[in-house]
């Protein structure tokens, strides 16, 4: 039985950088309990600064639940794809060379090995997000203050928010696809 392998590249750099030839990015992969996430951002974030209409601070998140067949890696985009194409298996490397965004285009890779699929599987949920803290600087009648996103009052930290959004989704059998 032939197996189908699908590879979906996502261009995520616009979430964190307005000038990919000048910005150095860093990233951190955390595999924790029932989920894994890549957190990526600039090495020198500039609060409240825009470049080419894109924000120069804040962190991007790419996450998925840790289920059977899930693997994750960070590597140069081309290298990741090559590994997948030639070996049929996703890479599992952890790139530690923090560099310019467009130097090899570091990829925050997440993959599911569906093995032999004969019918629709449960939906695979990926979380892609960006979070800036603080969100805005505001001149109130009394002070110049930094304000944060409202949703952060509902979670202890952004990691909690990502996990909470993710886990119930993947464990719920009544997931409505409509």
């Amino acid at each position, binding site marked *: 039985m032939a197996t189908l392998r699908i590879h979906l590249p996502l261009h995520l750099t616009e979430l964190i950088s307005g000038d990919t030839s000048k910005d150095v990015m860093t990233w951190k992969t955390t595999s924790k309990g029932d989920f894994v996430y890549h957190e990526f951002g600039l090495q020198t974030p500039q609060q409240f600064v825009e470049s080419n209409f894109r924000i120069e601070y804040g962190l991007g998140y790419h996450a998925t639940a840790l289920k059977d067949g899930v693997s994750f890696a960070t590597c140069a985009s081309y290298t990741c794809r090559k590994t997948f194409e030639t070996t049929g298996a996703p890479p599992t490397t952890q790139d530690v060379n923090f560099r310019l965004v467009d130097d090899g285009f570091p990829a925050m890779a997440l993959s599911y090995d569906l093995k032999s699929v004969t019918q629709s599987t449960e939906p695979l949920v990926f979380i892609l997000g960006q979070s800036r803290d603080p969100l805005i600087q505001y001149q109130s009648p009394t002070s110049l203050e930094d304000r944060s996103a409202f949703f952060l009052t509902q979670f202890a930290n952004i990691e909690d928010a990502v996990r909470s959004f993710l886990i119930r989704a993947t464990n719920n059998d009544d997931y*409505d696809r409509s």
Partner: protein
Amino acid sequence: MTPAQISFSLQDYNNALATANNFDSTLKASAAAVNANYYPILALAARQVFARVEITVGKRADGSLNPDDTLAFLRADRTSAIEELYASAPFWLYVNPELLRLMLQPIVNEHKRIGTTAASGGTVLDLGGLSFFFLLAVRRTYHWQEPLILASLVIRGATICLSKVIHLATIFA
């Protein structure tokens, strides 16, 4: 409905999806009452407008987030531009008037802040020139009372909005 009561039940993707689908069906039904072809444009516009809103909270003295101090901003080229608030007001009144109030509050606050400086008067046009940085633009205005502020905001917002619409119409004519 206080800001703290804005229910935040989006604690997981399925609830978020159900809420989103519910919103879309309600919007679709409302649109169908106007015209059969209205929904696609409304759906697109709704997403654009929602994407621009940022609901923010301030911090308490100890650094923790304070959900009772909630303000919202409409973020585009200019933060909370009054003609954009004016144009989007019908949508907010349909969806949740509290969000409109949260977006008007910073503008009213701004008038209170600079209210006592003299001169020819005028309303605040927006809360900042760049999307992410609040410029301390000096605007001259009288010391307005709140109802007057809102009235003049509506008039000015409507005027700018109308002039933009006319401008667009001439481009596309």
